[in-house]
């Protein structure tokens, strides 16, 4: 899970989930706490889905 996905690609990650921002990849301080938790759940859901998905090459899960 990474904000600067070109770096993830360069270093060879195979399952990549784009995130929010460098200092807070899984959060957004502009949101309320509840909104932020919701956002984080969505991102974690994406990561869990990526883990359950067969990939044959480096893949970004938008």
């Amino acid at each position: 899970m990474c904000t600067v996905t070109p770096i993830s690609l360069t270093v060879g990650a195979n399952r990549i989930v784009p995130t929010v921002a460098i200092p807070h990849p899984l959060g957004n301080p502009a949101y309320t706490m509840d909104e932020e938790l919701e956002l984080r759940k969505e991102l974690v859901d994406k990561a869990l889905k990526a883990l359950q998905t067969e990939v044959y090459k480096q893949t970004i899960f938008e």
Partner: protein
Amino acid sequence: MSKLRVVHYINQFFAQIGGEEMAHIPPEKRDGPIGPGLAFKAQFGDEAEIVATIICGDSYFNENLDTVTKTILEMVKEEQPDLFIAGPAFNAGRYGVACGSIAKVVQKSGIPSITGMYIENPGADMFKQDIYIISTKNNAAGMRSAVKDMAPLGLKLARNEKIGASIEEGYIPNGVRVNFFEKERGSQRAVKMLLQKLAGKEFVTEYPMPTFDRVEPQAPVEDITKAKIAIVTSGGIVPKGNPDRIESSSASKFGKYDIDGVNDLTAETYETAHGGYDPTYANKDADRVIPVDVLRQYEKEGRIGQLNRYFYSTVGNGTAVASAKKFGAEIAKDLISQNVSAVILTST
């Protein structure tokens, strides 16, 4: 001034004794230059002369590494040379290893030594930190350009002159930084590079990226509701106070932290050790970097099997690829010993 004395090492092939069928021949010494030695002779002119050439079969060398280096070192010493040249070996693997091995041993005895090989020759990686290895083409068609670089650097070594940067001298980078003044200032070089790039032409970066491993993607997790999931991060999240004193940049270590019973990371309990990004948001709520709160909730709801008892953390800021690789290997080993089935890796 008298000519510098040079001893040259070549294999059976370049000595025109034979190919693979003659690779078993033991070392022998002959007077004067042979084969590629003639190209060196032309390049040296009046400055140096090859007084002897040592020839050895590639198989013999590699199968008798300990004894053969001693024998050849004695042969070299007898000539009291100012310089020892091995190869160039281009992309010939055993020849490259032979050139690197013998040049290293001879250099250690106090005689300046140099060799040349193709960057992908296994000998290049093995010996580039021990001796100067001129970067050559991958086959003998590159002999002329190899000699053109090897001869002058060899003379410099023999005369104990200052050696320039790899880009100036043509040797394979050996990890030693050498300062030098560029003819043009940075802005001019950058604009030239950009123009080349925009025109679709070749340009040479001044900041090459390290080469990274590629790994085959792992099979997907079959049943996520039974999976044990671990968190690993390069975002520097640590228990408040940074107990392991992980450095804010160029980290020399990683931490392993017990989150048994931890449902939420708070400003009172966790923070980031990471320099280089504004730590305000991570310090206020470290779940923004590692989603312990969500994964803990999912664990309770049965949406994942288990959140691993430990998370692993280091600082990615300026950390050497070699260090990161080492941390990765150690962390992976530990994860496997805990039967972790999948990892969520977060980076800042």
